[in-house]
């Protein structure tokens, strides 16, 4: 059933994926284990649990978990479930607390997950193994420069190793600030898209559709007197990259030229920001060197850490995470990153620009959401069996609007799904 879902014809320059990959319930059921139980999944950022006792509840691979900082300042990811009868434990989305108490029988756990109080404990008799009832921790948790990832696979390779080529791109975002410099800003967008999660994966790092599907955003830019640079080969830095392990990225400059709060003034930003942005750029250059500062400050990038984590490093970095809840429905959540201690004027500008572009009410994302819903609906037709991701392949070309990163996604997915029976060439 699974071995023939991807046709990877390197010689002929043709890459095709079968429609069943996106619509079949049995394939989705296998994915739940082979993909989501054996990958690194994003939970949250350390700045969201800054103080001891601070917590956020999250859904990861359909599990309910708590991201929480203990009294020992350690950040943990605990299963959000009482160990007595399995009841969902914490119901507040976020907060600060000394303990979590189950609503059912009042079993009480401290913020490191230790069971501290059980009503009428004597009834369990002498020698009762109370310590065996501490909250369960997710098997693997790692904090990479503030980003907390978990895996339900105890044997998985360390997160930093599993990043492979994606590490370079994640570091390009992390390096914009000194250590601990980023914080997740208040507010989050939660929405759902009636489409298979892999359609979202293809879309989020796809630059091919941008000027077409998002023309209204470009028209808005022109209407306020901002000229948008050329796309693809004519736009300076322009590349898409398949980064190993299903990770992918694209980098481009046609919108970056309009301004980036990482340290580049452009026509989208008000005049008064020229000076503070020059100052930001100078500090960046001192920290990482002139060449790296240029790439950081004057290039936009979309990064995918397979399967569910995305960083949109545009005018300001945005985290987007997905959680598939069915073969044709995926939950999405987004946050904005900002530097700690930013001036109120810069902060307001950051939020103002985010609100325009990404997010469910902006001038960009709603069209992605709808086109993915239309794709899922279109794929109900069984007659069109094979979908195409060959752009740039025959030419050996990897511009930002080529589809190399989409091929990398499906190759890795296919290897996971067939338990390595089918392997594919890399970087083609």
């Amino acid at each position, binding site marked *: 059933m699974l071995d023939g879902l991807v046709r990877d014809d390197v010689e002929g320059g043709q890459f095709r994926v079968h429609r069943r990959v996106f619509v079949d319930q049995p394939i989705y059921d296998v994915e739940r284990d082979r993909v989501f139980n054996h990958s690194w999944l994003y939970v949250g950022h350390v700045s969201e649990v800054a103080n001891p006792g601070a917590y956020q509840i999250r859904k990861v691979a359909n599990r309910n978990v708590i991201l929480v900082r203990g009294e020992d300042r350690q950040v943990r990811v605990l299963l959000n479930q009482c160990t007595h009868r399995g009841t969902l434990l914490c119901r507040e989305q976020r907060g600060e607390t000394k303990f979590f108490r189950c609503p059912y029988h009042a079993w009480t756990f401290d913020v490191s997950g230790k069971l501290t109080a059980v009503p009428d404990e004597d009834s369990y008799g002498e020698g009762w193994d109370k310590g065996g009832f501490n909250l369960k921790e997710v098997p693997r948790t790692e904090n990479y420069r503030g980003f907390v990832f978990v895996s339900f696979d105890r044997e998985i390779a360390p997160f930093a190793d599993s990043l492979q080529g994606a590490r370079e791109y994640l570091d390009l975002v992390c390096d914009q600030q000194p250590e601990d410099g980023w914080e997740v*800003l208040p507010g989050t967008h939660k929405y759902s898209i009636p489409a298979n999660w892999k359609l979202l994966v293809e879309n989020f790092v796809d630059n091919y559709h941008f000027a077409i*599907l998002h023309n209204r955003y470009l028209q808005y830019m022109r209407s306020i007197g901002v000229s948008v640079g050329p796309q693809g080969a004519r736009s300076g830095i322009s590349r898409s990259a398949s980064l190993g392990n299903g990770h992918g990225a694209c980098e481009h400059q046609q919108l970056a030229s309009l301004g980036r709060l990482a340290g580049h003034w452009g026509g989208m930003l008000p005049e008064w920001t020229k000076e503070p942005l020059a100052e930001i750029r100078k500090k960046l250059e001192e920290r990482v060197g002139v060449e790296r500062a240029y790439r950081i400050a004057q290039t936009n990038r979309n990064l995918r850490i397979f399967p569910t984590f995305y960083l949109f490093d545009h005018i300001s970095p945005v985290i987007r995470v997905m959680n598939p809840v069915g073969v044709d429905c995926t939950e999405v959540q987004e946050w904005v990153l900002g530097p700690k201690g930013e001036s109120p004027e810069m902060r307001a500008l950051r939020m*103002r620009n985010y609100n325009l572009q990404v997010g469910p009410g902006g001038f960009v994302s709603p069209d992605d959401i*709808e086109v993915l819903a239309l794709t899922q609906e279109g794929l109900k037709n069984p007659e069109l069996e094979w979908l195409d991701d060959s752009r740039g392949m025959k030419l050996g070309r990897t511009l930002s609007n080529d589809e190399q990163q989409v091929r990398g996604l499906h190759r890795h997915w296919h290897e996971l799904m067939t338990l390595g029976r089918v392997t594919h060439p890399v970087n083609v």
Partner: protein
Amino acid sequence: MANAKTAGEVTQHDVEQFLYEEAALLDGWKLNEWLGLLTEDIEYVVPATNLPGGSPATALYIVADDMVRLRSRTTQLLEGQVLVENPRSRTRRLVSNVRILGRTDTTLEITANFAVYRAKHEQVHVFMGRYDHELVVTDGGLKIRRRTCTLDLEALRPHSAMTFIL
């Protein structure tokens, strides 16, 4: 509203009629006419579902439009550039529980409940919440200077996106 000169003369009935007229324009896709109900310094905001009290200067918003953005947004909608609104979705909004919470010589703070039924792809989603508007009394009648639409939804699920004017 019959030639009211000051905010003190505006009645509960005037405010209700104004909100009903506005709702009819929005449901009827008469968006250019709707823009005429707004002051040039309009703030149209829809807070993030998890942070209804935040400020657009410091927190994430679903929508935070000034007049420049609103003109563009309505043009995009009317010209069919917004994919999900082409073809147009159908909306029917019910506005109720209107209250005048405060007045100055020229302005009124009002609140109302809303439920916008939205039909698209043969499905119906309800966007419900509360309006908090600042209305200004002008020679041309009441106008809206601040239009805050706070959703009671915990997430845009299964609504997906916020593409029409709430």
